[in-house]
C-alpha cells in the first residue's frame, strides 16, 4: 500500500520515562479527553509514578470513578491503585473561582486583595466566563508543578477550541499592559473631567469620554477600581503566563491531541497539531479513541449484505402467512419483517419521537397499536418459527446486517484516519478500541489504559 503509515505512539514509554513531567491532553469536546487523562493517570500510577490528574469539569460519573465528588481545588489521593510499584494517584477538579482568588491573594497585599475580591467586576470575571477557565487551568498547572510533590502531572483542557487560548495569554496580556487603554482606565480623575484634558491628547480624551459613555458611570468606576487594584498584579499575571508558556515548551512536557475517528474531531485535531507546532509545543502524538474493529474483517460489508439478502429471500417462501415478502407490514409480530425493517433503518417520525427504537425498528407501523403493549424485541422467541432452518436464516441475516454496519463504520473510520495521516504523517498515533459502555470505576479506567497501551488488532496490522 502506498498509503502513509503513521508511527505508533507508545504511551507506556511516555509514561515510564522519568523525564516526562507534564502530559497535556487537548482536543475538541466529546472525544473522551477527560477519560483519557484519567486513564493515563491510573496507568502511570500503577506503573510506579506519583501522579496528579487535573481535570476540568469532568462528567460526574467519571469524577466518582476516581473517588472525587467535590469541586474543592485540592488534589485528593485516589484509593485502589494497584501495581505494587509504590505509585500514587491524586486527582482534583479545577475550581476556577478559587484558583483566581488564590492568585489574587498571592500576588497582592492583603488590603488590595480584599478590594479586588469584593469588586463586582472581578466577581463576575472570575466566576468563569469563556476564557477564564483556560487561563486558570494553566495557572493551576503552574502551581502544581511548582509544588514539586508529584513526578507526573496529567492535565485535561477545557472542552473547546479556545482550549489553546492560554497559549496566547502572555501575548494578549502584554499587548494589553503595554497599551494605552489601561493607562486611560487608570486615570479616573481625568475621565470626563475638564481639568485633566490638557494632559491628554485629543484622541485619548475622546476615548475616555467614549469609554465612560459606553460603560456608564458606575460600571466605569468599578472597572477603574478593578484595574487600579489589579495593576500590581498584572505584572505577576504576565510573568506567570510567560513562565507557564516556557514550562509547556520544555522537554519534560508532552502534548497529546485526543480525537475520535470522526471527520469533525479529526479536523479539530489537525488544527491542534498545527497550532502546537506554530508555538513550538512538544507534541507526543494523537490518541484516537473509540476505534472499531471486527474479528471478521475478511467479510466485506457488500458481501455480508448480499448474503443476508439471500437468506431473507430463502426463508421467505417457508412462511406462507407472509406472501407479500419482507415489505409487507401487516403482521407486526413477524420477525422477518422485524429484521428487514430494522435493517433498513428506523423512521422515528412514524411512531412518534419518544417511541422505543426497537419497537420502532422492530415493529414498524403497528396498525393495531399492539407494539406498545409488548416488550420490544426484534426477534421474539415466543413466535415459533415455521422451521428451525428459517429461524436460523433470519438470525444469520441479522448477524450479517450487523456485520455490514460494523464494516461500514470501520471503512469510514479508516478513511478519516487516513486523511489525517496524509496531512500529518509525522504524528505518532495510539488507537484505543471502542468500549460498548461508559466508564464508571477505576477498573474501567484501567481497561482504557490497557487499550491505550495495547493497540487494537487493526492498528497492529496497519502498523505492521
Amino acid at each position, binding site marked *: 500500500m502506498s498509503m502513509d503509515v503513521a508511527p505508533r505512539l507508545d504511551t507506556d514509554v511516555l509514561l515510564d520515562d522519568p523525564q516526562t513531567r507534564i502530559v497535556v491532553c487537548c482536543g475538541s469536546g*466529546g472525544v473522551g479527553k477527560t477519560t483519557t487523562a484519567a486513564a493515563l493517570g491510573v496507568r502511570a500510577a500503577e506503573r510506579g509514578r506519583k501522579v496528579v490528574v487535573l481535570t476540568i469539569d469532568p462528567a460526574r460519573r467519571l469524577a466518582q470513578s476516581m473517588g472525587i465528588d467535590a469541586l474543592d481545588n485540592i488534589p485528593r489521593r485516589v484509593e485502589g491503585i494497584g501495581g505494587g510499584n509504590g505509585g500514587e494517584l491524586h486527582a482534583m477538579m479545577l475550581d476556577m473561582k478559587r484558583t483566581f482568588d488564590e492568585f489574587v491573594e498571592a500576588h497582592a497585599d492583603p488590603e488590595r486583595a480584599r478590594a479586588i475580591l469584593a469588586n463586582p467586576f472581578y466577581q463576575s470575571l472570575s466566576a468563569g466566563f469563556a*476564557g477564564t477557565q483556560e487561563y486558570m487551568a494553566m495557572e493551576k498547572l503552574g502551581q502544581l508543578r511548582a509544588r514539586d510533590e508529584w513526578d507526573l502531572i496529567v492535565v485535561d483542557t477545557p472542552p473547546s477550541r479556545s482550549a489553546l487560548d492560554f497559549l496566547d495569554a502572555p501575548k494578549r496580556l502584554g499587548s*494589553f499592559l*503595554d497599551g494605552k487603554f489601561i493607562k486611560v482606565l487608570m486615570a479616573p480623575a481625568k475621565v470626563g473631567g475638564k481639568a485633566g484634558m490638557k494632559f491628554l491628547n485629543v484622541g485619548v480624551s475622546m476615548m475616555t469620554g467614549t469609554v465612560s459613555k459606553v460603560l456608564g458611570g458606575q460600571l466605569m468606576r468599578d472597572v477603574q477600581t478593578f484595574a487600579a487594584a489589579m495593576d500590581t498584579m498584572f505584572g505577576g499575571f504576565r510573568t506567570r503566563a510567560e513562565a507557564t508558556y516556557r514550562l509547556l515548551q520544555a522537554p519534560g512536557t508532552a502534548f497529546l491531541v485526543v480525537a475520535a475517528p470522526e471527520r469533525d474531531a479529526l479536523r479539530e485535531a489537525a488544527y491542534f497539531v498545527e497550532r502546537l507546532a506554530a508555538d513550538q509545543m512538544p507534541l507526543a502524538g494523537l490518541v484516537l479513541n473509540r476505534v472499531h474493529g471486527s474479528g471478521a474483517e475478511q467479510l466485506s460489508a457488500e458481501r455480508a449484505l448480499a448474503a443476508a439478502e439471500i437468506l431473507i429471500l430463502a426463508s421467505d417462501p417457508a412462511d406462507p402467512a407472509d406472501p407479500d415478502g419482507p415489505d409487507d407490514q401487516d403482521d407486526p409480530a413477524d420477525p422477518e419483517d422485524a429484521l428487514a425493517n430494522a435493517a433498513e433503518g428506523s423512521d422515528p417520525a412514524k411512531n412518534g419521537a*419518544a417511541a422505543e*427504537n426497537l419497537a420502532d425498528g422492530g415493529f414498524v407501523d403497528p396498525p393495531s397499536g399492539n407494539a406498545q403493549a409488548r416488550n420490544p424485541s426484534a426477534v421474539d*422467541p415466543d413466535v415459533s418459527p415455521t422451521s428451525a432452518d428459517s429461524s436460523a436464516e433470519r*438470525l444469520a441475516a441479522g*448477524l450479517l446486517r*450487523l456485520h455490514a454496519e460494523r464494516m461500514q463504520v470501520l471503512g469510514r473510520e479508516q478513511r478519516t484516519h487516513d486523511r489525517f495521516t496524509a496531512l500529518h504523517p509525522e504524528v505518532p498515533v495510539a488507537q484505543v478500541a471502542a468500549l460498548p459502555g461508559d466508564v464508571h470505576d477505576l477498573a474501567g479506567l484501567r481497561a482504557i489504559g490497557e487499550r491505550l497501551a495495547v493497540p487494537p488488532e487493526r492498528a497492529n496490522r496497519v502498523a505492521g
Partner: protein
Amino acid sequence: MSRLHVVSGKGGTGKTTVAAALALALAADGRRTLLVEVEGRQGIAQLFETGPLPYEERKIATAPGGGEVHALAIDPEFALLDYLHMFYKLGSAGRALKKLGAIDFATTIAPGLRDVLLTGKACEAVRRKGKDGRFVYDSVVMDAPPTGRITRFLNVNHEVAGLARTGPIHNQAQAVMRVLKSPQTAVHMVTLLEEMPVQETADGIAELRADGLPTGGVIINMVRPAILDHEAVEVVANGQRTAVAKALSRAGLGGARRGGMAERLVDPLLEQAREHAERVALERAQRAELTGLGVPLHELELLTDGIDLAGLYRLAADLRKQWPE
C-alpha cells in the same frame, strides 16, 4: 411560538449539524431563517460546503419550497465595533479604541463581554424588522456553546445588568434578557443515546429551569437501528450455532464444517452481536431517562456515510416532520 432557537449539547453530539438542519427545516415553505455561529469554528461553512463565512449575514442555502437560510459567524471583535457603531455611532472612535487595545480587553481579558456581544447580536437579529414592519427573519437558530456553559452564557446579560446598574449597557442587557427569558426563545439540547451526554442533558435542563430560561426539546442524534437484542443473541449462542453456520454457508459464505469459513464467521459475528445487544440495552435505559425529562423528544438517524449536504437536507426533512407547527 419560539423564534430564537438556541441549540446546545455536549461536545461531539453533532450540535452544529442539528442547528444547521433545524435552520433548514424552519426555512421550509418560503420562510427565512438566520443560522448563527458563535464559537468561531466555521463549522457551518464546512457543513454547507462553502468558504469561510465573513462577519456578515449571507444566504447560504435554499430550503425546499423556496425558503432561505442565511448564516452569520459572529466574531466578537467585529461584534463589539458593530455594537459601538449601532448604539453610539462610533466609527473612527471604534477604530481608535482598537488601537488602544480596548477591543482586546473587551473580548479577551474581560471574556464575559464576549458572551454579551454574542447573545446581543443574536437577539438583535430576532427583533430586527424590515421596512414593511415585518420581522426580517422568521426564526434565528444559534449554534450555541456546549451544555456545560450554556446557562452561564445565556445569563451573562443578567450578570451585566447587575454590574452596570444604569446606563446604556444596563438597558441593552435587560433588553437581551427579556428576549432570552420569553417564550420567543427555546433552548434545545442535542444528545446521543449514551450515558454521559444524557446525564449532561438532564443537568443542563435542570440548570436552565432553575434560572428561568425556556427549555425547548431534546434532539436525539445519530440514532442507529436496533437489529438484534440479547435474547436473539443468546438463541444463536445456545443451540443454533450449527444451524447459523449452515445458513451462512447456504448464503455462499463458505463451508459450515469445523474450520470452514462460514463456521469461523459465527464467533466473531456473535461477538459483534453481543456488543450490539449491550448497546441496545444501554440505549433503552438512556431513552427512558430522557423520556422522564418531560420535554419533547425528536430523533435523527445516524447517516452511516457521514454528513454531506444531501445528508443535511435529509436530516432537515426528518426534523421538519417531527417539529411542532
